[in-house]
């Protein structure tokens, strides 16, 4: 029991799991249950300020709070029949969030959002056949975003947030496909960066087109996470490499891409609400993961991610004041190009289904529950750009992933 608690506590606010690229779209149980739509969903709960900062001023209550976390299970299996390779990675992560919104007046609201939109953890068996690319990786980042929203007129509001990012990564891989020390242990390097900070912003606009239809648009800025003098620990080096590598530090930069979202919500009647939206993620800024070591050597790892879209839809049914039911889904395009499928982020296109409910224990306090399942097709993935003695060599096989989550949250509005 203690071990499991420690595991979860360590993963709390860490979001060690993945969706398109290393983006995790799980920033609110209510909206997740509706396919993670939200840019045009007004009068929800405090989760709205993440999906569109302009939505804060549309919330009904003066004070709105929402907090929650999910248990996210990501399993990937790998096999290659030419060589009889089999391997798998099982990861549990706990993305979490906290939102608070205060309506200073009918036209003006301020809020604070804390959430974990990025994470990636994969844990292959040490020294597996792809160990020259990755043995294990754990990437996490949390965002703190103070927000303001302003009602321009009865129909249109605008909002903005300043984003403070704090993140880190721990990444281990073997130095080459065969390098060992004198005892035959594979030489490897662990890159460790903690407390990497950066800044960004979030702007949005919401427009009530009529009594039923609302339009929302949101833009999240591109953020570069830059590591300087990160800790690089080399293990099991042969004697002739020790002088080259011992005591080096590393620098690297990893992009958290910009995201543009726009969508519509349609209040069909008092009980039924539907929402559709599209996210466009500017992944093409992720050309290559370049690691510079203080001894002058460089590790260039081409990635060439491409811009990708996610298409979402969700429905909410509120039969009474006590209960809301939700269902939704989304189709998530992978940013990974053919030939660049690296086992540290082994994800192809996926199709997700979500459902959930809110049960209002009291008029002020509600319990939000969500469940998610992401379906991935079996996929032949390979990475063709690892350079060995001047020549690119390929690594790949058949991958199959399955991801699911259950989430719990509380909303308190008064």
């Amino acid at each position: 029991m203690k071990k499991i608690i420690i595991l979860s506590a360590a993963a709390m606010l860490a979001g060690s799991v993945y969706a398109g690229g290393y983006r995790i779209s799980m920033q609110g149980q209510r909206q997740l249950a509706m396919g993670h739509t939200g840019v045009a969903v007004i009068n929800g709960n405090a989760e709205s300020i993440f999906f569109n900062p302009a939505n804060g001023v549309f919330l009904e209550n003066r004070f709105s709070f929402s907090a929650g976390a999910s248990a996210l299970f990501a399993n990937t299996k790998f096999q290659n029949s030419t060589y009889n390779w089999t391997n798998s990675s099982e990861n549990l992560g706990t993305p979490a969030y906290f939102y608070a919104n205060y309506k200073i007046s009918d036209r003006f609201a301020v809020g604070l959002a804390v959430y974990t939109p990025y994470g990636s953890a994969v844990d292959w068996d040490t020294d597996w056949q792809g160990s020259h690319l990755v043995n294990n990786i754990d990437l996490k980042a949390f965002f703190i975003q103070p927000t303001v929203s302003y009602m321009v007129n009865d129909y249109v509001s605008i909002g903005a947030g300043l984003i403070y990012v704090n993140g880190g990564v721990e990444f281990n891989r073997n130095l080459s496909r065969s390098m060992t020390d004198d005892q035959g242990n594979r030489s490897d390097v662990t890159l460790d960066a903690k407390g990497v900070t950066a800044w960004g912003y979030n702007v949005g606009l919401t427009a009530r087109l009529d009594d039923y239809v609302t339009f929302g648009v949101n833009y999240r800025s591109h953020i570069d996470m830059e590591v300087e003098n990160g800790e690089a620990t080399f293990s099991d080096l042969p004697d002739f490499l020790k002088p080259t590598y011992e005591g080096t530090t590393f620098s690297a930069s990893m992009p958290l891409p910009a995201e543009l979202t726009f969508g519509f919500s349609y209040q069909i009647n008092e009980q039924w609400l539907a929402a559709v939206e599209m996210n466009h993620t500017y992944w093409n800024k992720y050309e290559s993961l370049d690691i510079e070591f203080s001894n002058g050597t460089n590790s260039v790892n081409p990635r060439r991610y491409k811009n990708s879209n996610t298409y979402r839809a969700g429905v909410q049914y509120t039969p009474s004041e006590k209960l809301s039911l939700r269902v939704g889904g989304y189709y998530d395009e992978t940013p990974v190009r053919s030939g660049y499928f690296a086992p540290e982020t082994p994800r192809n296109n996926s199709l997700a289904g979500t459902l959930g409910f809110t049960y209002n224990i009291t008029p002020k306090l509600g319990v939000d529950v969500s469940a998610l399942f992401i379906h991935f097709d079996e996929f032949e993935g390979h990475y063709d750009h690892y350079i060995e003695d001047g020549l690119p060599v390929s690594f790949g096989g058949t991958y199959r992933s399955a991801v699911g989550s259950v989430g719990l949250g509380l909303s308190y509005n008064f």
Partner: protein
Amino acid sequence: MKNKFIYLSVLALGLVACEPEFDNELTPDSYSSGEADFTTYVAIGNSLTAGYMDGTMFRSGQQNSFPNLLAQQFSVVGGGEFTQPSYADDVNDLGGLLLGGQPIQGFPTRMAILMTSDGSGPVNLAGTSSIEVSDLQQTAYNNMGVPGAKSFHLVAPGYGNIANLATGRANPYFVRHATSPDASVLSDALSMNPTFFTNWIGNNDVLSYATSGGTGVNQEGNIDVTTYGGNDITDPQVFASVYSTLIDGLTANGAKGVVMTIPSVTSIPYFTTVPYNPLTAEQLGGDAVIDMLNAQLGQLKQVLAVFGEGDRLQLFSKTAANPVLIKDETLTDLSQQITAVLLSLPDAGFSQEEAMAIGTIFGQARHATADDLFTLTASGVIGQTSLVLPNPFNIMGVTYPLDDMYVLIPAEQAEISTATTQFNQIIRSIAASKNLAVADMNDILNQLVSGIRATDGQIYTADYFSGIGNMNRVLFSLDGVHPNARGYAFVTNEIIKVINRHYKAHLPLVNVAEYPGPKIVTSNN
């Protein structure tokens, strides 16, 4: 308590519910042995079968012998246990051999690359061997590869008798594990009752001659093997007869197997690494030295020209790479003629002894051409100054002709090539008569010279280790003849492909790239 239960259930449920499934999950049933039966796999052959590399047999190297790697793949489809002669006494992983506690001459420790700030080059690891020949194991093993064995050695009783070591009629490697003094390698192999075998023999029947620089005798026409020397080429009829005996024995109970052909010398880095013209102006000592050398050379050229043999020698170039001076025993010996001409030159002032010395040295000397092949060992000799020879004729391969043992002249290459082709024809035809699979290592190694592209995109060649630049691609060990661990993995895959094709099996390949290449050390004391 209840909360903990719920928590754990959610966890377990989640992890189980999200279990991905493959359409065709890989299991051992995904593979098959086809028409072959790998229950008892026995390998016979020489050092290439035993797992010899870097100039010796050593404990960790043996783990990567191709039969051991093959057996690991066979085990997926029902292959049985695979045993190899024990090297447990090689506690420091140095190789070499001891007899009665004393290191045996000609069985040095393992080679490695010594890399220092001054440069890098191959060395024998410091230390003394701990592999004692007289600790007799007296066991038959699945791996019956005996380093140094020629074809007829495998059927010779007494080849493993310790008493025969003094007369050279026994092999210390076989002595270590022969089941009895009179056992033959073949009889020990057959005592394992093989259901499947590999047989890679015949290399030493021709390649011992090659690695000796052609100093042995071509025994074609002589079928009495008791008269053979170690560096001789075996008579083809002897080879055919022995090879038949081996195959008849191995297939007597219906066992199937793979035989391998013998590579040609032009595909082994032992013969292709040292160029015929390694001498740059800088290495020779600069322009002034070259002028001085050319003065002497010019004179000798003129002397030889008198007999129409002026082309034997070339003047040194200050810009281009210069060929090595070698002794070619097929040339007409002009020692006396040279001496006579030198003595007849009035102004040259050669004494009787000087003229005779020069005549003797240059009687059969010539500069190498692109048609000559040099052994790897020549690199340690060319350019060295001899302590016994008189100045200025004391720089090996420059002013003193390199000995026959370091060079394969075209005539010697032709004998080797003819014998190799004859032996390979015998191997292929005997294999065909028994419907055995043939792994054509001759063809594969020839392709390796220009490069073979592996399925992962890496291009492997037959080059010798040249430094950090090719350390992940080199397949040959530092002795230039035997593969390294990665090379044996490459060989294993070629054999698996042949087995898959010929016996309609479906075996998984090994991952060549993860096997180690050359061992590099920073100190050797």
